[in-house]
């Protein structure tokens, strides 16, 4: 059965291997360029030039890294659509199910081997790409941070392996239910795309209990936020991010030490002519705000949970497919 599986799969395997080879060459070249740029422009930058050197590095490599990440997000979708969905429907459409399901092996055996071989291939291809991209983009990630970002998190390390296995099984099961190739491909793509949006927006952040803490507004906190000001509903700070953390609050109200809201009148007191003095003045007012986040050291736990969730769903789908196919 492994022979037949390989014999039917080898063209698709060759296409995947070819595409992976091309991407690998690109990622190795890109990775080396970034390493070179990082060691020459960033590591030894003159103090007054460092900010612009960092910005130049981000501008130069932001787009290629994001594109390579987007492609990696697309790989499981392609696997689901082109490996998963046609796995059973093509046999049904060409009526070869009537030949192969009448050899001396049961349908469950037939499907189990197919799922194992193609599922492992899907995980291997995606895993290799993820490994290459993680290596290639490591300097960029180190500099820019934000590895909890929806795209960065889903296109590095372990998470893509889970997506690949899941997408393949999703395609297979939809094919088994829909029984026609083109509709099965379309449904697979739609369901997987919805999941890839729902997961980062609505699900992932709830997989662990976030931490809520009180942050004192000092110079460091100011430099780590986007905006601070007085709005119609009081004083607030926007876009504060703890180093390496996954921020769940985008905007927080500012409070005085005694818990009363920070007011416009207080803010006026620190409006002088010198920005640095203004900031020192504001810090001395002893303001704080509330901040909810997942700490940086949870990154690997989140990666493992993501992998486990999708592998768990994969196992459920495989169980359903094997149960469903026994006539």
């Amino acid at each position, binding site marked *: 059965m492994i022979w037949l599986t390989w*014999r039917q799969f080898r063209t698709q395997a060759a296409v995947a291997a070819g595409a992976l080879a091309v991407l690998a060459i690109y990622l190795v070249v890109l990775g080396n360029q970034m390493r070179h740029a990082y060691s020459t422009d960033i590591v030894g930058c003159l103090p007054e030039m460092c900010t612009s050197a960092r910005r130049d590095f981000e501008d130069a490599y932001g787009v290629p890294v994001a594109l390579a990440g987007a492609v990696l997000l697309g790989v499981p979708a392609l696997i689901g659509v082109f490996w998963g969905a046609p796995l059973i429907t093509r046999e049904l459409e060409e009526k070869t199910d009537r030949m192969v*399901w009448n050899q*001396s092996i049961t349908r469950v055996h037939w499907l189990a081997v197919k799922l194992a071989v193609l599922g492992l291939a899907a995980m291997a291809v995606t895993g290799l790409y993820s490994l290459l991209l993680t290596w290639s983009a490591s300097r960029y990630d180190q500099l820019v941070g934000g590895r909890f970002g929806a795209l960065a998190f889903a296109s590095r390390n372990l998470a893509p392996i889970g997506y690949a296995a899941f997408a393949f099984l999703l395609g297979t099961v939809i094919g088994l239910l829909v029984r026609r190739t083109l509709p099965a491909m379309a449904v697979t793509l739609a369901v997987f795309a919805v999941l890839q949006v729902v997961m980062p927006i609505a699900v992932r952040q709830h997989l662990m209990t976030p931490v809520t803490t009180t942050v004192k507004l000092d110079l460091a906190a100011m430099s780590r936020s986007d905006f601070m000001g007085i709005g119609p509903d009081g004083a607030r700070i926007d876009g504060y991010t703890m180093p390496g953390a996954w921020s769940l609050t985008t905007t927080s109200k500012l409070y005085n030490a005694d818990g009363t809201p920070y007011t416009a009148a207080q803010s006026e007191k620190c409006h002088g002519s010198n920005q640095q003095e203004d900031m020192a003045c504001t810090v001395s007012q002893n303001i704080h705000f509330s901040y909810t986040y997942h700490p940086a050291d949870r990154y690997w736990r989140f990666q493992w949970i993501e992998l486990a969730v999708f592998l768990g769903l994969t196992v459920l789908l495989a169980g359903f497919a094997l149960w469903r196919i026994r006539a």
Partner: protein
Amino acid sequence: MTPIIETRDLGKRYRHKAALTDCTLCVPSGRIVGLVGPNGAGKSTLLGLTCGLIAPTSGTITVLGDRPAAGAAQLARVGFVAQDAPVYAGLSVADHLTLGRRLNRRWDMALARRRVEQLGLDPAQKAGRLSGGQRAQLALTVAAAKRAELLILDEPVAALDPLARSAFLRDLLEFVAELGVSVVLSSHLLGDLERVCDHLIVLAGGRIQLAGDVPDVLAEHYRLTGEQAEQADRLPAGAEVIHTERTARETTVIVRSSVPITGAEHADLEDVGLAYMTRAAVASVRGLEVAR
């Protein structure tokens, strides 16, 4: 000997219509069974149930004493060639033999190679490039080299031209004798089957119309023409008129009777099959009229 097929009140319903209804059968071992019926009679459904590709919605079926497709061992005992002889278009003839060897414990590679050679098939040829007849032969080879005890062929000659038909059937008879297997083959044309089968099942409207060994069927059916046909109401007790055919020139009546009818000639197999199928068709048209 275990019957090759034994069914009791077997039925298969698809969403809107019944494909097979109350089918009770017992086919003895060692037969070449002809399954005849018009298109849509339920032949493929019955054969699909027999090899276990589909599951019944009512009743029971056992094949060689076990539930169809019950496991690898049961699958090994039944060879099946589906309608239009599906093969893998992208796989070569040789690949199909490898497929057979990898997927069947009792695979007879010598037999398979010999047949491919006899048929003049090029082992390197892709199956998608074969003619209809060659494809049917390849599918039959894969089913035969499995060394099953029962071979099921669904409409094996439907796609073949008359010359290829008779060659296919002659070849089939030869190696059936060589392998000593039971065979079930279906067709909508009785003419294809009457030369090869020794057990006949007539299926129409999803119901069994007639089933029996060919010599018994022939012995029980009479064909009355002319004056005899006019006196068909004076038949011996227990005799049943299957179908009356009136043309401008003459009337022909097909009668089933276990008691000999003196002076009447026996009907041939084609007459009998046609009479049962026509009767079922007429009944279903009347049924529609009544329903209206």
